[in-house]
């Protein structure tokens, strides 16, 4: 049946995509294959032509059709990757480093060329220059005796597909991983990273301070500390131990302290070490408490229909809060409740600000009232109250104005258009 099918294709479609698909390598004719797969109707049209011009003795072998579709599913996409994506090393004069990169693609027949880029490309060689499909490439980087200027330098390890053939708009991938080489700064050079997480009052907070020696000289870290400030006011100092760092070395200070000494709020922290030069970094952190603040609620609505009522809430707790809802009570000057609503329950992430919405019916209300918002969360309540104004819409007044405008337009029309003297 397959021979019969191919014979038919060769007779009927000598210059078309399908025949080239079967008569040549599939991988070299992805364009035609794609064309054929994507427009199965084309195949159908050709078959119809045959029924007119020739004796139709063709029947579709669905196994072959299935295989064609299967091939198409493999060839409409193309991927190329490199692992690892990045490597980082510190510069040592004359050092030789070896890296193993895995180049992977989804086509076992894909031709891939290996090359280097970046300012260190001239110092790198690979064990192969071309691979087919996927494979491992061993890269040897022989560093020179010196690199200027100090700082980051890069070697890009790149893999590029061979150009596709026979496609109208074909694509190829040129992908790169990199090796970052850090050249140390002359003398003392310390790089600090501080991790001061948010917490709640009374919790143990773990502060991290990483110090890296990015200079050519050893570092003797003395008087390492983290100072905590609240609105420019000094609050507390966390003293850290003395450490000696050799060339290219690093140390991660961990310090735990009980935040019960701090009040809820926002803080500013400055970490510093002396080598004897002073190196600093800073950051902010928050100390939370189980409190949700109402920052705004609706104070003004119109009183002729059910209206939305908005409450802006901020979670000042360094944990999530679930099932938060609010009761809103509107009272008159005598303290009598005239309207009431309860919002749906919503969840808050830690420190999240969100608007809770409910609906209140102010029918029959007009003028000034007092709104009391009671926010319920995690067994606690925040209550705020404020003035609440209900304005009524005077439909009679609006109707009169609309009627007057209509009369005015009619009068203008009559005097300026209707009574215009005819020439």
């Amino acid at each position: 049946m397959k021979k019969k099918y191919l014979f038919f294709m060769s007779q009927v479609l000598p210059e078309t995509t399908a025949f080239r698909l079967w008569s040549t390598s599939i991988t070299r004719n992805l364009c035609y294959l794609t064309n054929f797969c994507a427009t199965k109707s084309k195949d159908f049209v050709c078959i119809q032509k045959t029924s007119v011009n020739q004796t139709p003795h063709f029947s579709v072998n669905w196994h072959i059709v299935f295989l064609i579709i299967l091939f198409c599913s493999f060839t409409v996409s193309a991927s190329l990757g490199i692992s690892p994506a990045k490597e980082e090393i510190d510069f040592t004069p004359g050092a030789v480093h070896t890296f193993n990169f895995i180049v992977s693609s989804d086509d076992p027949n894909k031709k891939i060329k290996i090359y280097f880029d970046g300012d260190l490309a001239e110092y790198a060689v690979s064990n192969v220059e071309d691979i087919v499909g996927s494979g491992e490439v061993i890269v040897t980087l022989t560093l020179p005796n010196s690199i200027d200027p100090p700082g980051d330098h890069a070697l890009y390890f790149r893999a590029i597909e061979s150009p596709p053939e026979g496609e109208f708009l074909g694509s190829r991938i040129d992908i790169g991983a990199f090796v970052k080489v850090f050249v140390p700064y002359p003398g003392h050079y310390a790089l600090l990273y501080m991790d001061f997480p948010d917490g709640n009052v009374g919790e143990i907070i773990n502060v991290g301070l990483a110090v890296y020696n990015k200079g050519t000289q050893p570092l003797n870290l003395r008087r390492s500390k983290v100072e905590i400030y609240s609105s420019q006011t000094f609050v507390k100092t966390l003293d850290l131990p003395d450490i000696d760092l050799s060339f290219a070395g690093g140390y991660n200070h961990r310090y735990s302290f009980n935040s019960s000494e701090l009040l809820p709020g926002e803080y500013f922290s400055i970490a510093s070490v002396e080598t004897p030069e002073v190196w600093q970094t800073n950051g902010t952190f928050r100390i939370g408490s189980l409190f949700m603040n109402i920052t705004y609620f609706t104070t003004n609505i119109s009183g002729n229909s059910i209206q939305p009522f908005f409450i802006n809430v901020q979670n000042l707790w360094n944990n999530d809060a679930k099932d938060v809802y609010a009761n809103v009570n509107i009272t008159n000057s005598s303290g009598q409740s005239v309207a009431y609503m309860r919002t749906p329950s919503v969840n808050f992430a830690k420190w999240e600000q969100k608007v809770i919405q409910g609906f209140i019916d102010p029918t029959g209300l007009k003028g000034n009232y007092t709104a009391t918002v009671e926010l319920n969360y995690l067994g606690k309540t925040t209550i705020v109250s404020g003035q609440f104004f209900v304005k009524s819409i005077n439909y009679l007044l609006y109707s009169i104005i609309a009627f007057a405008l209509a009369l005015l337009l009619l009068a203008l029309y009559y005097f300026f258009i209707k009574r215009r003297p005819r020439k």
Partner: protein
Amino acid sequence: MGDEKVSPFLVFIAVIAVAVSLFSLGLIYLSANTLFSQISGRVTNGETNLTVNTQTEINFTTRAIGWGNGRVNQDANSASLTTFATNNVTGGNWTLTTAGGLRIENIGNVNVTLNLSVAKTAVTFIGGTSPVYQWNLTNVEAASCLNSSQQNMSDRMNSWFTATSANTGNLWCDVFPFNSAKDTVRVDFNITVPENSLTGALGDIITATVTAL
């Protein structure tokens, strides 16, 4: 009951039983103590070792576009070909094979830069009088193409740019994220084929240059 005489033998047996019980209790205590000291403990420090390799990899989920065979209609000066789902051929009898443009997805686990370039100009690709070769980079998933500040690209997206082998025609993303919810972009094409264009099998190659960040 109180008048009954207790047998000395039974008293002796009872004393022996109590003594054996106490001895057994001691043995159980010692055995359990030894056992617990061997199978339990308080962990003061632990360490896990797990390495996740970084991988830079992209995938052309649609890697080629073609319109098959065709020609400019006899009553038209030119034909317009696009990669849109509808109205993708005007003034000609071509048929678009795969609508939706080239689609590129970051399937690695690191952010990358993405630079798209073509190898030809409209003149060398299509030829004829006033050929048009344009392309347009858009998000398939929102926030897939970002600038260096991790904000949406505004200058090289969502507009038609002339595709040319000169670098001035390139499209790019400073950051092409790997987050599965925002890691796919598409490139559409707008091509005008004049009636006196080059003939035969035409083609150009789009190169996606990708580098790990």
